[in-house]
């Protein structure tokens, strides 16, 4: 198991995917489609960030476990 099989796909996924995610967040905030002054919208900001970290954590955990085994 080398870097090409373990952490490179992870870094690429959350690097390139992360850029798409951040650009998306910036577009909806700057266009006022998501208004940070709205309590309801603010809740969604946390959900969106949680979702990103949730998936990154699942993938990182499984890679650690596979390497460990």
């Amino acid at each position, binding site marked *: *198991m080398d870097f*090409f*099989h*373990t952490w*490179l*796909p*992870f870094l*690429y*996924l959350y690097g*390139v*995917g*992360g850029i*798409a*995610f951040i650009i*998306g*967040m910036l*577009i*909806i905030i700057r*266009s*006022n*489609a*998501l*208004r940070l002054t*709205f309590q*309801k*919208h603010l809740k*969604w900001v946390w*959900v*969106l960030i949680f*979702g*990103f970290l*949730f*998936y990154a954590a*699942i*993938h990182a955990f*499984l*890679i650690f*476990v*596979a*390497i460990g*085994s």
Partner: protein
Amino acid sequence: MMNIEVGTQLDKIVILVYFSLVMGFGAYFGKYSKSTNDYFFGGRRFAWWLITISIVATGVGSHSFVKYSTKAYQYGLSSTMTYLNDWFFMPLFMFGWLPIIYYTKVRSIPEYFERRFNPTARYLATMMILLYMIGYIAIQFLTLATALYRIYGIPLMLTVVLIAIATTIYMHFGGQTSVIFTDLLQGFILIFAGLLLFFLGIQFLGNQVGINGLSAFWMNLTPLQKLPLAHFNHPPDFNFVGIFWQDGIAGSIGFLFLNQGLIMRFMAAKSVNEGRKAAAINVLFVLPISAIVVSNAGWIGRAITNVAPGILPSEMAANDVFVAVTNIVASPGVFGFIIAALCAALMSTADTLVNASSAVVVNDIYRPLSKKVKTEKQELEFARWTSIAVKVIAVILVPFFNSFDSIYEAHGWFHSTFTPPLVVGVFLGIFWKRFTSQAVIATFLGGAFLMILGQFYPQLISPFDHGIELRPDRGYSYIGALYNIFVCAAVGVIVSLFTKSDSSQKLVGLTVYDVQNLKSIFKGSDANEEVGGCPVVNWKLESNDSDELRFSSNDMKLMKANPGDLVYVQDARWWLGGLKSAHSTYGKPHSEDGVVYINSSHLEHGQFVEGLPLKAEKEM
């Protein structure tokens, strides 16, 4: 093809009972389709949980079980990659595209192309989307028929025709409401059946090794098979970077932004916020479960092979693993039930696509080309017959797809051929105001030309290959998606920069930059954003032709509502998920607290039950 004895009499009966149950269930909901709006969009009334489960059934096609268990058997847990990479575009979907399609009342993706660009863009998009969806339906028919004809011994094409007739019976009468409710039932069944198969497989492994089943399963996968992501660029037919561009980028945008079936499902939600909840829960929690559901037969098969090599036939092809493992771990009757879940996957994906194709034909061909204005009844009748015609064409296309080496290949060919120009067109249309009408036409035509060129001259794709090996005579596989997206986007951007931008008046409400004003555009006046309560009230009928619901002054105060605001009422029983509900506007208040006055039109649409209360909530 491996020769396996599949299916007992009991299995055959279970499958037949299942088909009858779904047809009856779906046909029952026909009474809720009173107009084309109900038929296609379910009347904009359903709760998030109903939408979520029905999306599962749509997303998991019958090909998913075969396709993912094959990859799971060959490569282990990395078969889940495509189910766990959809979050990146959620911000743009939830706060960009979803409010646009919901509030502008766009009835189809091609209609968006006409409003945003011009009629030519609409017709090109119509053609591409219809070809894509009807072909997809044909692939679904073929996958299920391939499994069923071996169980019943009926010729393949006759099996295809029988499946098409079965789905027609409930769809013909019920439309989107039937699709949502049958998909709810089938979503539960296919998740339950997939998890049951996993449980039985683990139990089987435990019995073989003599230890706890879960430990036996985990111990008998190699470290490589436990990795959640594939090798970066090797082998050519299953590598991380290619699949990331094909599925994580093109596939995710295509699924979220262009899948007419999915869009119609979100438009059936009672509000944009309910649509957001459905999308978030689906991607966060249901997709990981679905990944286990569709892949586990392959993982179990791999663990069985590692622990006891003789149990699965040595000559077994990888794509037979689903049927082989199910046959080994499930007893008679349970095998039939799991195959019935495969039927569930097919029927729920096919019915959504048929309904969506029918919506596109009615909205983008019939209405624009029709010289006389048609009544709702005529349009509804046409929509019903269109759904039959769509299925007939799909059945005719089945032999063409049967000529591909595998269903996987046929499916991949579809995705790579029809998705990128549409993905680029809709994405730049929503998020880049400068993207012009000429540019979208150039993207469709010029981009498609460059994509075809890439198929014939793979060296054009080489600069994008990330070190993936070029297969002699077969070209590049998944990474071609990156090249296709790049050339389509390049054509679109270059032509936009050299052509005059569309007037900003024309773009009102159609880009992400107007989302904040969409509620007012939808309502026709300023949106009332004050957060109020949701009273439960009794209803009384009054003879009144105007589309207004009348509440008491105190109830209006509780809801922080004013006359003219939009209101939604539903049967107070939450588990109906909004099936019995109606949208309207607040009328002049009265003094009878806890009572709402409705008219016969609301009653007919909402199918409210005498004596049962309604829950009211202000929309805006």
